[in-house]
């Protein structure tokens, strides 16, 4: 559906012409009469102008699609001028779905497009988990004099929906600060990363393991052995308590959503590496999960470490329940701390995923670290320093993370303006 109209944009020129003729008459100045031809020219332009009739195709591209929660997603709206005349003033507005915040750029633009040329506007959004359907964009073309206006809402080719899923995006590599999770060195030479010993070369040894430097010095072939690692249990503790219902900006994913996403990705990586993984979730009850799961502490959902399909199903159900929960409870970790210590085996590692916006979960992680468990912390950061209140929250969070580091925990502070995979890649 389109609309064409002519505006009375140069009404002021009429007033100007009349004023010039009047003043010219009063003062007897012929030059003012002649000057009236200038506004008359503008009126003639308005009179002869017709609304433009553009021939356009519009295409929308979304990358990446699907996107992960909080992932910067670039949207490009391209307009191709298929007509024979230049569109000097083409205003384009991409109509965003409700609740999809723009992080950078603008979904609006004014373009000037020659025949056969393609111009585009681009912007970045930060989606929450869900599906977003875009309306058709609005285009408005104005003539060079801007008196003729054409407005339409052509259908856009390409992507019309943006899907944001927890399992989207790359699975982060845990080779950086979290590389020790899920594996533990044993007193035996073999495959691994850490140097264990050197022994005499035996036929069949991998040629890449030969110590060529030693061979150059002594002429003897030796093979390097690395400390072998063994799989362990890892329990992922997800903090989705009420303190995490804050976001970096209005409409952005909350700290809880980002924590659940990070937990899901860490679990996916550990399972992919063949480790046994369990989950304990703070902020919901076991009864909130759609499949039967055990409970720990104050009825918090507990999935025992495992790597089979049933465990994976239960883990997904817990994560879904966390995302769906709108009224998450405050953290109650007193009974949980004791309960977890009883449930966890001595060789279990713990990854705590928490925005660190309150002290309860931090205290729990600290207590688990002090009893000998290897504790890692993945902490999505939604704080900043814009304003005194936010600065205080930011500093408090930093102090909590420092306390965790002081207790021996390995802390990965995730700047949520970057993707989790990219941020972890940098942290290696």
């Amino acid at each position, binding site marked *: 559906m389109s609309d064409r109209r002519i505006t009375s944009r140069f009404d002021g020129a009429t007033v100007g012409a009349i004023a010039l003729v009047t*003043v010219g008459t009063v003062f007897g100045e012929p030059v003012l009469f002649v*000057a009236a*031809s200038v506004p008359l020219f503008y009126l003639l332009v308005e009179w002869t102008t017709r609304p433009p009739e553009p021939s356009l195709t519009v295409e929308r591209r979304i990358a990446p699609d699907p996107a992960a929660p909080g992932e910067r997603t670039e949207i490009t709206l391209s307009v191709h001028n298929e007509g024979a005349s230049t569109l000097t*003033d083409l205003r384009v507005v991409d109509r965003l779905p409700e609740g999809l915040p723009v992080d950078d750029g603008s979904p609006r633009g*004014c373009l000037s497009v020659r025949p056969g040329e393609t111009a585009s506007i681009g912007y970045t959004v930060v989606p929450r988990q869900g599906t977003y359907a875009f309306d058709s964009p609005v285009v408005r073309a104005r003539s*060079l004099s801007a008196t003729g206006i054409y407005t339409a809402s052509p259908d856009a080719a390409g992507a019309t929906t943006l899907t944001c899923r927890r399992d989207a995006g790359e699975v982060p590599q845990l080779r950086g600060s979290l590389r020790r999770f899920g594996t533990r060195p044993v007193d035996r030479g073999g495959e691994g990363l850490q140097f264990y010993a050197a022994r005499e070369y035996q036929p069949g040894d991998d040629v890449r393991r030969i110590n060529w430097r030693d061979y150059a010095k002594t002429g003897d072939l030796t093979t390097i052995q690395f400390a072998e690692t063994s799989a362990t249990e890892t329990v992922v503790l997800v903090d989705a308590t009420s303190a995490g219902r804050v976001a970096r900006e209005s409409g952005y994913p909350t700290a809880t959503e980002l924590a659940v996403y990070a937990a899901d990705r860490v679990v996916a990586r550990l399972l992919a590496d063949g480790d046994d993984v369990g989950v304990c979730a703070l902020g919901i009850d076991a009864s909130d999960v759609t499949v039967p799961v055990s409970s720990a502490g104050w009825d918090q959902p507990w999935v025992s470490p495992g790597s089979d399909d049933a465990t994976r199903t239960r883990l997904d159900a817990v994560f879904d329940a966390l995302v769906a929960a709108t009224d998450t409870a405050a953290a109650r970790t007193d009974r949980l701390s004791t309960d977890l210590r009883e449930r966890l085996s001595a060789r279990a590692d713990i990854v705590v995923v928490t925005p660190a916006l309150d002290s309860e979960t931090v205290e729990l992680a600290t207590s688990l670290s002090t009893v000998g468990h290897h504790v890692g912390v993945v902490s999505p950061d939604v704080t900043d320093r814009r304003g005194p209140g936010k600065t205080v929250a930011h500093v408090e969070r930093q102090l909590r993370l420092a306390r965790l580091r002081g207790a021996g925990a390995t802390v990965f502070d995730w700047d949520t303006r970057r993707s989790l995979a990219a941020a972890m890649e940098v942290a290696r």
Partner: protein
Amino acid sequence: MSDASDRDEASVPSWRPTLFSTTTAVVAAGAATLALAASVETLLPALIGVVAGAALGVTVIAVGTATRRLTVAVGGLLATGSGLALLAAVASAVLTQVPWPPVPPVEVLAVAPFAFALAGVATGFGAFAAMRDLSPLSDAGLTAIRLLGIGLVPAGAVAVEQVRLPVAPVVDAVNALHARLFVPGRPPPGIEAAFAPFVELMALLFVAASVLAVAVRRVPLVPLASESARPAARAVQRRLRQLCGAGVAAAVLGVSGVVVAAGFPGLLAQVPPGVREAVPGVAFAPLPRRVLGVGVAAGTATTVGLWLIRTVASTRTRLSSLPVVPLGAGGLLTLAVAGTHESAAAMAVDRASSDAGRRLLDQVLEAFGSFTLLAGIVLLGLVTAIAVTLALSALHAIRLLGSRSGTQIAGTGVFVAAVSAGITDGAVVVVLGGVAASLFVWDLGEFGATLGREVGRAGVSRRAEIVHGAGSGVYAALAVALGVGTLAAIGRLPSLPAPPTTVAVVAASVGTVLLFLVSR
């Protein structure tokens, strides 16, 4: 296509007119107005007008749209400055035609310099209004209301100067009271003569103790102390209040003793001689009285100061509604006038270009006084600024100005300058160029404004703005070419019998075309 007005986001910087188009339009407006004025050698009124208009624009931004008291106070001073600049623009239009001071009878002055001053004001104000997307109705109207408060202090000072309010008797009474209370003189012999001064002293003690008791109660000594120091602070405050209470009790007892002694002379005779000799000494001693006077002043200052701090810091106090800021700005202006009126008057007399003018100035200064005249000029400047802002609101109310019409005003300024150049026998091309420039400014400014509402400053638009600006420039050039061509065509026509006939013929032609276009 939705625009900013749909979402009430016009005040958000992102939805203001786009920078490139608006800046280009504004720069073109300023350059065109000043160039037109310079072409007919009337630059000064236009230049001062541009400065005055710009100052008025900044004033409206500071007073009408800002909520901080400091900006409101600065805006108040700026308003006076912009008003004075407005007056200066008019004065410069006068003084380019007659010598200082104008001595009656003054001949009829040319209109063009005043029109150039007006053009400068419109251009300067329009430029700032366009850049900040000011609304003449809400912003300028609010400015006028806030500025009214500033004029109260200088107006009051002028009233005191002219009406001769009975200030002296009040000052005399205060001096007499001060002398009686704090300079008691030598004690006369006999205890009876010391009764009245003693009662005065006791009254002073009563007032001082009461005022200090209130002050001690109001001082937040305990909340300000650290946790460990709070018991000590609480004890100190309790002790001070006890001392004040003791002072009040002593004053009451002292007065009661005097009453009893005066009513029962027999009892007075039984008073020990030492006491009888000490009472006049104490009653007439200046030191205790001065100490008590300091106590009264300190207690009052503490109580009032704390009240002021609490009022200003309170979240319930609306900053914009405080009259302190406009009154303070008015007070500053009055102080400035008080400090400079004599030298300003001397300078005005020195610069008189004739004896008649000097005599006129002397007579005026003698009749009104230099303070009243300078304060009157300051007030006139303020009133001028208020009148201009109210006029802008009125123009919007009668729909002659749009809701956000900065470039419209700036374009009008260029147009007025072009007309002024026309009636000052400016070159034809210059006048045609001026009229075309006014339409260029208006066109580009309106383009930037709609772009700001529909796309916003965050959106991509630079290339389209350049294309539109270039196109608008081409239109303006073609319009000037049409005018020059029309003039050349008229020059080739056979000469008509008389100039009025020419005027009538051209007017009829233009009028016919206009009627045709308007009625289409």
